[in-house]
């Protein structure tokens, strides 16, 4: 079949890995794939999906920019009788299409909760603790979801944490500058959460010269958590620098999406409707042993992804 794969960008490892997984699986199954990169522009994405529809594709896999645009685009497809699967980011309502989702906020909450607990455990019972959160681009739903997840985790320990929010705009250089300033302003840090794993090298560059980049168990280690579950995070968790990362099961999601679309096309169904949830989990120093290979980043790592 002829399948249109419309995604919102390819700028982080997670999206690149998803992209690869989906395109490769489809091609292996003998389908032809039309790729459309919206480069984070919803309008362009809508245009691209319309374009796909106009080309007469048999089905669409969509990675939307956010929930609201997803609703519109799904409607665009279904009203033109093209089956559609939404990958990873849930539409604001689940009335149409096959929806494969992970709950960013919940995963973030688990991962952040893990390091906050560690911080609490290490400190005297009444001490006020300082947590730093690196926030993504405020125009990006994922960033907002992750920020919310972190806030929910903090809310579980009322009155215990002072939070410093650091803007990154999903940009390493910005994150470096801002984090460096934040650390200078308030050098005592008890826990840190980054909204995306891709910022770990940046965090390291800030902490290392200040002697704050320590392995778990060493004096001065800052409990550190992220989200995505990429290869670097896996490596750092194994080395002990990082304590937790929120993981979405990328391979599960990709496979579910591909299967759903193929099934719909084969059945001639134009408006399949189903929600497939990826529960996700947090890979932590605690569950590393048993769950390592559930994390896509660790699989990549094992394949030698970082040895280039």
């Amino acid at each position, binding site marked *: 079949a002829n399948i249109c794969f419309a995604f919102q960008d390819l700028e982080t490892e997670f999206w690149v890995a998803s992209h690869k997984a989906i395109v490769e699986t489809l091609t292996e199954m003998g389908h032809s794939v039309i790729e459309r990169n919206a480069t984070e522009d919803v309008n362009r994405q809508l245009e691209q999906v319309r374009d796909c529809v*106009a080309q007469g594709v048999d089905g669409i896999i969509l990675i939307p920019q956010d929930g609201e645009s997803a609703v519109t685009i799904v409607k665009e497809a279904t009203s*033109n009788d093209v089956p559609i699967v939404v990958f990873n980011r849930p539409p604001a309502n689940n009335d149409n299409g096959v929806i494969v989702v992970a709950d960013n906020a919940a995963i973030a909450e688990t991962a952040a909760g893990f390091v906050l607990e560690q911080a609490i455990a290490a400190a005297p019972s009444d001490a006020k603790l300082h947590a730093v959160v690196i926030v993504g681009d405020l125009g990006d739903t994922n960033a907002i979801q992750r920020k919310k997840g972190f806030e929910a985790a903090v809310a579980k320990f009322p009155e215990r944490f002072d939070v410093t929010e650091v803007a990154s705009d999903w940009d390493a250089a910005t994150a470096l500058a801002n984090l460096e300033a934040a650390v200078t302003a308030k050098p005592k840090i008890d826990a840190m959460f980054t909204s995306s794993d891709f910022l770990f090298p940046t965090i390291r560059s800030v902490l290392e010269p200040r002697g704050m980049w320590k392995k778990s168990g060493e004096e001065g280690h800052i409990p550190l958590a992220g989200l995505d579950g990429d290869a670097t995070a896996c490596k750092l968790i194994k080395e002990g620098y990082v304590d937790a990362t929120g993981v979405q099961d990328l391979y599960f999601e990709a496979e579910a999406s591909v299967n759903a679309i193929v099934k719909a096309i084969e059945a001639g169904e134009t408006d399949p409707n189903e929600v497939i949830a990826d529960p996700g989990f947090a890979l932590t120093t605690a569950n590393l042993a048993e769950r390592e290979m559930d994390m896509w980043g660790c699989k990549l790592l094992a394949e030698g992804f970082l040895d280039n």
Partner: protein
Amino acid sequence: MSSSPVPRRELKDKAVDLLLSDQFVLYLSIFYVLLLAPFLPMLVTPANLVNVLSNMWPLLIVAIGQTFVLAIGGIDLSQGAAIALTSVLGAVLITGAADPATFANTPIWGWLLTDAGGPLAGVDHGVVLAIAAMLVAAVVIGLINGMAVAMFAMPAFIVTLVAMMIFSAFALWLTQSGNVANLPDDFIRLGRGDIVSVYFGAKEEAKIARRAIYSLVTYPMVIAMCVALAAHMLLNRTVFGSQVLAIGMNRKAAEISGVRVRRIIIAVFVLSAVCAMIGGLLFAARLEAGRPTLGGGSFLLDVIGAAVIGGTSLFGGKAKVIWTFFGVMFYVIMASSLSAMNLSAFQIDMVKGGIILCAALLDVLRTRLKRERVR
């Protein structure tokens, strides 16, 4: 000068004529499509052409506003932010419902926005009132830009860059990054409503598939054509337009000749913001949500790029709405063809840059011919 046979000479003259005319970019677009059509047959399918056109209208309206600013030798980087802010504002006013989970933390929760939606939800002519409010907001943005440029003699680039930062941040802050959906149908129809639709195919088909029906005339098309026509008259046929171009060519001379330079500069920035708002209205309507991130990313480069490819000069004094029209057309056709080429996502940018360069090179050739042309 040479003694070449007469008919050949005429042919060459015709070719040169073609190259030098105002419609050059139109011919370029047609030539481009014809060149690619054998390799990418889907490019010329009615479905695709309709799609290309539908992508063109909102961009065209925004680019027209930009053309006016370019005509006075300015630049308006805040158009994207104006789109974001006005779309959020309009949507907040008319939305039918808002999710507390998303909006409870916003500064407007409780007084402007509640779970029952905005103040104009369900009100008679609520959409019209909301659009009026958006218009007012756009005028205010334009006034701020224009006054800073005209009164404080600040460079337009920095003024509008700052305006872009502030207004888009303001839009994000208003909704705390939330997109405002649940808009009334009257509003959404503006973005996709068909006025005339056509169907090419067998008549006896019992049920016509939705995708076999092509929207030929849509609301966005009508709105954009009206704006374009009005703008064309305004810029290239009225006293106001001549004064705009005069300012772009030589501000001092215009001032000494009694042109109300400041007032016109302000008017031009207002015009630009209003055009942005109308374009944004169409974007918001077809996305069915007001979005604080609308018009972000490389949108502005598309807008300015389209205007400049059309032939409008960044240094002012040389601008035509019709040029922008064709420039935008070329731009959307290019985008569509890039999709059709089915390049890998990793190559698309390179090809895009290459096409822009080729178009510009043809333009250079054309200018050179113009200069050397024996009349």
